[in-house]
């Protein structure tokens, strides 16, 4: 016994006369005995009956004239080619020279007047990179350019390797001193020794010393009124740094 769905699968073949006599007899017998399938068959034929109405919808009368109108227009690629051919890319020599001159003037103006903007954080970083160029007239250890400097580890990382012989020292404080006389190094060394600091010359231009943070005021005294740049700037904060027992200081004379 076949299921209703199997009979319904034969609807198209039945409608198109593709069933064998036996299959057709089987389907017709089922439709006669199954009201549900009979109703489905009725709806099936009714649905397809609507195609007759669609089939006989006449085309619009202006279809052919419209085709001729479109044929008279050149195809899209040909119109594009014609458009490109119509464009004049040639230019006279004075016009070209004037264009180049204007472009150069505009470029020069932008270069001179429109410097790239820096965000506040970038300003601090830039300042720290340029720290050695900052000469502080006051002998006191102070912040650079009024900006709070970066924390010590970052300061080290950001610090440029200005002195090759200091690369492996990793000083906690790096001071560049403007030398006034050729004998400044021994004088400075002597001033430190007088204050019971223990400096030693790491190279002809560099003094290195280790001291407890409490002795920083003594170091300031020893440096006197010389112009200098201190890195990192936080060095001037009282009690800096809080977490260290001793500080490695590198002083370079230039």
């Amino acid at each position, binding site marked *: 016994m076949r299921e209703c769905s199997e009979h*319904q*699968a034969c*609807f*198209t*073949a039945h409608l198109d006369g*593709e069933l064998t006599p036996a299959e057709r007899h089987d389907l017709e017998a089922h439709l006669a005995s199954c009201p549900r399938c009979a109703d*489905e068959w009725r*709806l*099936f034929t*009714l*649905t*397809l009956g*609507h*195609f007759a*109405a*669609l*089939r006989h*919808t*006449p*085309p*619009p009368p*202006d*279809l*052919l004239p*419209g*085709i001729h109108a*479109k*044929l008279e227009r050149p*195809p899209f690629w040909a119109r594009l080619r014609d458009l490109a051919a119509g464009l004049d890319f040639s230019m006279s020599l004075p016009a070209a020279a004037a264009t180049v001159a204007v472009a150069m003037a505009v470029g020069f103006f932008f270069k001179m007047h429109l410097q790239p903007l820096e965000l506040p954080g970038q300003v601090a970083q830039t300042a720290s990179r340029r720290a050695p160029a900052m000469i502080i007239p006051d002998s006191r250890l102070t912040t650079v350019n009024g900006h709070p400097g970066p924390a010590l580890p970052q300061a080290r990382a950001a610090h440029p390797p200005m002195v090759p012989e200091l690369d492996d020292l990793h000083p906690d404080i790096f001071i560049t001193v403007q030398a006034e006389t050729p004998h400044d190094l021994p004088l400075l060394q002597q001033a430190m020794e007088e204050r019971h600091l223990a400096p030693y010359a790491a190279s002809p231009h560099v003094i290195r010393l280790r001291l407890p943070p409490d002795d920083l005021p003594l170091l300031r005294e020893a440096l006197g009124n010389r112009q200098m740049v201190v890195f990192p700037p936080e060095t001037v904060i009282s009690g800096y740094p809080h977490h260290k027992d001793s500080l490695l200081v590198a002083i370079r004379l230039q």
Partner: protein
Amino acid sequence: MSEHDVAGLVRALRQGDNQAFNQLVRIYQARIWNLTRTYVKDEEEAKDLSQDIFVTAYRSLGHLRDDAKFGAWLYQLALNHCRNRYKRLKRRGFFSNLSLDDPDNPIPLSQGETPERQLERRNVNEAVRNAIAAMPETEKEILLLRDLQELSYEEISAILGIPLGTVKSKLNRARLALKERLKKMLEYQP
């Protein structure tokens, strides 16, 4: 008109006889119009689409190898145009107000409206077109080629490039699906 007559017109067109082209348009315009009208539903779009199909046929006649197969070739061309236009219109939301994309949803009756009144209000042909337009592409095309264009299974198989058995099985599925979509409306028809 036989394939032989059509082939003669195509030959004449190849030789520059534009009257032959007009003759070919007159032969096929009703079929192409009904195909496009049912495919994209909108009359203006269908007219523009039908014109584009004939223009393309005229301009690319050199690609037709067998003059006697002009009809099948034209249908292939037409279906390609229909698919592209349908996709473009669908992207633009052209069919978004129909809610017929879900094959499980038959055309709904408006609330509080009797089927008779709805039938009065709505054009039955439009409802059928809407239901067909919302069908999956292959099933829709088989249905249109068989029940609208009255082509044979063999012709449909050649045009769509699918096996004969697939044409038959998909046609039955498409017809049953269309019946389900139109069921509510049809049940109230005398």
